[in-house]
């Protein structure tokens, strides 16, 4: 008599993805369910693996620069800045002050664009259709500035090792100021739609809690860590590119749930506007390129440089053996590390919350898989 069954009658294995609209790319999550309750997950990733780190070893330092934009393609400027900073560290040089200020403006603009994409798609996942149109409307304005500046909208390749390729265009400052002015009331508008919306609050509050200790244990950084009450932001902790010159707050919350992460990111957009306004007011005159040879050939050595990307700590560990090509480039991707905590966050919750939690982690699969 067959008394053993393949699965316990109440357990169900559900495959989510890789082609699923709420996984924000090609993420496959295998869920083990008991009714509506999640008992465990297994993430299958790598569908977008392009071997970026291997490519780096076969390109010169400068040639590899555009590739990094293709990792977190919604925040390409942060990726590019991190790589440039890492190679500049190896070369022991710094970008000139003018380049640093322009870098800060563009990076913060990109942070807003990245957060807007997150907000729109996250709200869409939860079932709110309207915010995505609002968010893309304002994101378009940010992308227009990128397009005017360097000709590209997403994979901008805006920076070069040692500074900038392009001088700012006429009216750059005016456009950025106009964007800042236009954008702040729009954040209020999004908040009016969502912050006190009963459905929104009901779907997000108390969902996917990750405490501060758990965040540290899993290496989770960025808004997820700040929503758990840790006031830590690399722009303040270890300033780069002149961030120490600007006044801004690190928004934090206490509960570490999905709702708090939403609030933290909304406030971060306001802080980014604040930084941009200060930076664009005081872009110093001067050269935009530091003293970098045509052939970039750092001395033998290694450096790890990281920065606060919209998703968390993005690090580059670059090893040079004295040749024109990097010997090794390791990217420490925030999305990859943060995604590992998904299992901890969804366990014991409801299957519908998995969608909310993937959204709130704000992962980009291009960066997870590299």
């Amino acid at each position: 008599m067959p008394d053993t069954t393949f699965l316990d009658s109440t357990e169900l294995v559900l495959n989510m993805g890789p082609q699923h609209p709420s996984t924000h790319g090609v993420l496959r999550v295998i869920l083990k369910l008991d009714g509506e309750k999640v008992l465990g997950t297994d993430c299958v990733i790598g569908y977008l693996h392009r071997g970026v780190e291997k490519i780096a070893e076969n390109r010169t330092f400068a040639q590899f620069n555009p590739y990094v934009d293709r990792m977190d393609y919604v925040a390409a400027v942060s990726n590019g800045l991190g790589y440039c900073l890492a190679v500049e560290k190896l070369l022991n040089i710094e970008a000139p002050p003018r380049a640093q200020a322009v870098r800060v403006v563009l990076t913060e603009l990109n942070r807003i664009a990245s957060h807007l994409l997150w907000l729109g798609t996250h709200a869409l996942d939860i079932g709110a259709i309207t915010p995505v149109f609002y968010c893309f409307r304002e994101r378009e304005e940010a992308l227009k500035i990128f397009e005017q500046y360097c000709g590209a909208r997403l994979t901008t390749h805006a920076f070069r090792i040692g500074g900038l390729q392009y001088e700012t265009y006429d009216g750059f400052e005016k456009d950025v100021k106009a964007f800042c002015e236009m954008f702040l009331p729009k954040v209020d508008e999004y908040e009016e739609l969502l912050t006190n919306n009963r459905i929104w609050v009901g779907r997000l509050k108390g969902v996917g809690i990750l405490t501060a200790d758990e965040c540290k244990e899993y290496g989770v950084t960025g808004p997820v860590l700040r929503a758990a009450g840790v006031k830590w932001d690399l722009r303040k902790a270890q300033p780069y590119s002149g961030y120490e010159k600007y006044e801004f707050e690190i928004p934090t919350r206490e509960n570490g749930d999905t709702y708090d992460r939403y609030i933290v990111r909304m406030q971060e957009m306001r802080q980014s506007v604040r930084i941009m306004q200060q930076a664009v007011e005081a872009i110093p005159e001067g050269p935009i390129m530091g003293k970098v040879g045509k052939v970039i050939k750092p001395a033998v050595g290694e450096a790890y440089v990281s920065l606060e990307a919209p998703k968390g700590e993005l690090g580059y560990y670059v090893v040079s053996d004295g040749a024109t090509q990097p010997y090794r480039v390791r990217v420490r991707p925030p999305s990859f590390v943060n995604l590992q905590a998904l299992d901890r966050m969804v366990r014991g919750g409801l299957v519908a919350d998995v969608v909310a939690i993937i959204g709130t982690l704000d992962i980009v699969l291009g960066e997870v898989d590299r």
Partner: protein
Amino acid sequence: MADEQKPEGSAAPSPEGGEGVKPPAKPAADAVKAAPPKPPAAAGHPAPKPPATMAATPWDSDLASELKERFGDRITETSTYLGQNFLVVKPESAIAVLEYLKLEADFDYLVDITAVDWPKRAARFDLVYIVYSFSRNERVRIKTYIAEGYKPDSAVGVHLTANWLEREVFDMFGIQFAGHPDLRRILMPDEWQGHPLRKDYSIIQQDQRWVQENLGIESGQ
């Protein structure tokens, strides 16, 4: 870029007397890749060539001396390069050092684990741990040199985040971690043969059999 490199290469074999500064420096830089440092025969040369090893300086701090006192000769080097501090420890002590740093010195955030392949070296791989302390706002790298086939202990017992990071190192370099709870490939397909980030794995190399079986195509490479 490619245009820039050509004239240098062609200038090197035919050294001209006039512009003596640049050409002699170039072959030395290329030699760095393979050979150990040349004896300082050209010591009197005006342009000092870049050293073949990392020009790291000793790292003097309370933490460094504390660690040395605690671990003795299991820590073989405490250095700093470009303002970034790192330790070199013996492979079997890496986890103990990580644990000590976490529990006694508050380095509670494991930022990254990665490896670097040096095929010509006896201990083929650098295994690199990067840790950070929120309270000290300080970052330290812990490096160990391990030979092919050596199975370092897993760090999952100390930092949970090591799980996926070690899986990626295993996937890309074939380093097996002893005591890892779930050591599977993470980015490459499970049945893939070879470890792509090893230096002897060419950039156009593929697992032909896997491509044929799973994609039903002849490889494009």
